[in-house]
């Protein structure tokens, strides 16, 4: 077995994630379902706990001390997300209840301001349902059509096909940055530029990129970029919509209610400027504070594991760590007869999905669970992709920086047991 970077004591880092010490079915938990959701460090859990114990109040309303502190903490988290995405302006960051809501907000908005009958919305074949269905709904509302961009057998976007599909009818291109099912890192910067050449708007679904890549929305030049914060060590219930300021300002309000208004009269209401325009009602204040704490955690991690430090250092180290884990997992799994890895792009994030000739992914998942190993089995909310791959489901191991090569060995050893049980 090869060993990971000697300068970092991974057991110390693992100890910062309380759930990783669980015993599952008599075995130490090997949590390899990070693409579904990541585990949370003590620092994030404590930040939310501390908020409820010492600062809990509604935001943007009260004149009292607690409300001011809560408002400050909430707004500070927005600035931290701006830094995470390297956006120009914190007003370009909208908090939503999840990545799904962020995409729906854009799809709904563009169906009012942009889409007309016959317009084309391009999405890749490897999209998660959350980046397909909102566009289908937008198409139903407007008479536009959704067209899938083909992928290759390796699980990469077919760039030639994509280029040939772009035309003056293309109004939106929605693409996943990192595929949740395949792990493929798509060339989104290039895809965005190609879309812009025909005047189309672009939305990049960054749900799976957030945990693994140092995202720079300015460099990508995406018009909209979305995050699922629980996938990068923050609590569930918070997503992020980044949008270029002029695009966010041009979108209509998504939901009406408190906090998104300037004035309300029965003769008509006016709306608050962005981002408040898109944050109707009391938001998930403690969750957003947890998001802020998760970014602090990553920055601090970067300082501890790299000379470079900060978020740049953190993501460089995370990338190296996960590259080793993914590479070793693919190496071990490939040695198993009858096992096929789905998604063989050389440009991959921390996902290894596979099928076994003799066993269905659910049976693999159940047997692995009995060995304390958590993976995902199923269609991963990517039914059109499964159809393209000619499978009904896959088993998926997905890694985070706190995973170990020993856990990869346990995964491979248990898959061998599955094979023996079912053949």
């Amino acid at each position, binding site marked *: 077995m090869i060993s990971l970077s000697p300068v970092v004591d991974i057991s110390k880092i693992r100890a910062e994630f309380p759930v990783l010490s669980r015993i599952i*079915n008599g075995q130490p938990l090997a949590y390899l379902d990070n693409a579904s959701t990541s585990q949370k460090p003590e620092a994030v859990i404590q930040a939310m706990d501390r908020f409820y114990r010492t600062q809990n109040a509604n935001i943007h309303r009260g004149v009292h001390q607690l409300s001011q502190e809560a408002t400050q903490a909430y707004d500070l988290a927005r600035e931290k997300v701006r830094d995470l995405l390297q956006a120009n302006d914190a007003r370009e960051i909208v908090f939503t209840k999840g990545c799904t809501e962020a995409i729906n907000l854009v799809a709904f908005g563009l169906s009012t301001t942009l889409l007309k009958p016959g317009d084309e919305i391009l999405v890749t074949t490897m999209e998660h349902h959350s980046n397909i269905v909102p566009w289908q709904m937008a198409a139903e509302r407007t008479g536009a059509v959704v067209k899938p961009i083909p992928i290759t057998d390796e699980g990469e976007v077919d760039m030639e096909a994509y280029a040939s599909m772009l035309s003056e009818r293309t109004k939106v291109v929605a693409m996943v940055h990192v595929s949740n099912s395949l792990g493929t890192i798509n060339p989104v910067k290039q895809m965005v530029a190609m879309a812009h050449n025909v005047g189309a708007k672009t939305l990049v679904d960054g749900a799976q990129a957030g945990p693994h890549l140092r995202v720079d929305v300015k460099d990508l030049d995406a018009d909209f970029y979305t995050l699922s914060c629980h996938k990068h060590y923050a609590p569930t219930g918070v997503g992020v919509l980044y949008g270029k300021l002029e695009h966010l300002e041009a979108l209509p309000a998504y939901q009406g209610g408190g906090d998104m208004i300037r004035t309300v009269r029965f003769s008509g209401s006016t709306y608050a400027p962005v981002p408040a325009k898109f944050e109707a009602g009391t938001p998930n204040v403690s969750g957003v504070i947890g998001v802020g704490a998760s970014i602090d955690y990553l920055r601090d991690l970067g300082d501890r594991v790299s000379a470079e430090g900060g978020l740049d250092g953190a993501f460089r180290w995370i990338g190296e760590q996960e590259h080793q884990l993914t590479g070793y997992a693919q190496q071990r799994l490939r040695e198993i007869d009858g096992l096929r890895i789905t998604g063989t792009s050389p440009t991959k994030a921390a996902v290894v999905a596979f099928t076994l000739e003799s066993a*269905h*992914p659910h*049976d693999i998942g*159940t047997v692995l669970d*009995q060995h304390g190993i958590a993976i995902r*089995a199923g269609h991963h909310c990517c039914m059109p992709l499964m159809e393209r791959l000619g499978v*009904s489901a896959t088993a998926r191991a997905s890694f985070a920086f706190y995973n170990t090569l020993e856990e990869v060995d346990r995964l491979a050893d248990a898959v061998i047991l599955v094979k023996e*049980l*079912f053949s």
Partner: protein
Amino acid sequence: MIDLRELYQEVILDHNKHPRNRGKLDGATGQAEGHNPLCGDQVTVYVVKENGRVVEVRFEGHGCAISTASASMMTEAVKGKTIEEAEQLFRDFQSLVTTSGPANEDLGDLEVLGGVRDYPVRIKCATLPWHTLHAALQGEQTSVSTEK
């Protein structure tokens, strides 16, 4: 030591590897499609009813070992039964896989599937073929789903 053999008993593994009565049934008088949207499992059950009896039954589709074995064993269990007997078997099977303790009736080979009651997320794998059979027997044209 973990005893996966409680769940994956030999009979189940055998039916999974060599499913009985699998494939399309031409001339079916009833058929229904069942889906588990949570995992993508899909099964179609075909029946031929004559004089209130299930004279022929087959299934096709894709799913895990539990759902494949359950479908296979189901076809063997209900073939030749009256529709009322088949429906009663469905009810008995449901209580076998959802309630603890021995089944009220002797369910024969089907009892090996009782192990799924210890795996809550897998119970629907075992019951999907039966729900689909029920729909096929009722002559329902709509597909059934494990999620209401």
